[in-house]
């Protein structure tokens, strides 16, 4: 049977989801970035476990640690948003609810990211 797709549709290659492979690729790239960042995070969390607030402040006010913590949290939240979107795509099939939940996930990616950067800035600048 002859394909009913228009040439433009074929070239775009986005299919029925309207978004193509972009989501899949972003999820893999962020997960690859999270491998080294997670190892550093585990090292930091074990090293801070049971210490007082001063130790946390000293550790996180070091530029490299602040930068790595910011990278870890923001990448984690980004990856979290992509993952939760898949869960919503899988289980929620009514348009209105789906859009609402996807927007809610966006909120829980952006708001904590900004909050984290603000907190780290506040720690770094004393």
């Amino acid at each position, binding site marked *: 049977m002859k394909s009913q797709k228009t040439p433009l549709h074929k070239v775009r290659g986005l299919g029925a989801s309207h978004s193509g492979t972009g989501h899949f690729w972003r999820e893999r790239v962020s997960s690859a970035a999270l491998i080294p960042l997670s190892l550093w995070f585990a090292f930091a969390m074990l*090293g801070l476990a049971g210490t007082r607030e001063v130790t946390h402040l000293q550790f996180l006010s070091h530029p490299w640690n602040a930068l790595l913590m910011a990278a870890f949290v923001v990448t984690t939240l980004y990856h979290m948003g992509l993952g*939760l979107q898949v869960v919503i795509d899988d289980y929620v099939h009514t348009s209105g609810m789906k859009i609402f939940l996807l927007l809610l996930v966006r909120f829980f990616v952006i708001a904590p990211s900004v909050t984290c950067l603000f907190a780290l800035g506040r720690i770094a600048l004393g």
Partner: protein
Amino acid sequence: MADNPQIAGRERPLSPHLTIWRWQITMLASIMHRATGMALAVGAMVLVWWLVCISNGPDSFNGLMVYAAMPLGLLVLFGFTFSFFFHFCNGIRHLAWDLGYGFEKHFATKTGTLVFVLAFVLAIGAFALVWTGHGGYLK
């Protein structure tokens, strides 16, 4: 994001689902990957809360540590720790699949078992390290 406009109120046949398949380690690992991912979403919120408390000063930080030291707090922290290591190890397994490695049936079962064992060992190991006084080395 695909819309799914179906005729309301009509029973439609479903493909075989959780209730019909024999449980296998590969299937359990897949379900756990999603479950731990969702648990870690909550964990990410706690992580940001922790950073805010640090930036707020000792009173705020010590307030959070009171929650963390409670039995329920420790249980939740252990859950996050296990989820973290499970999602980390199984995530690497997924990335290997995406590169085309490790698809053979018996091998996939082995790596699935390995991920469970590793996640438990690493989570218990992390808690043991702190409890035996080997944590907190950044002082």
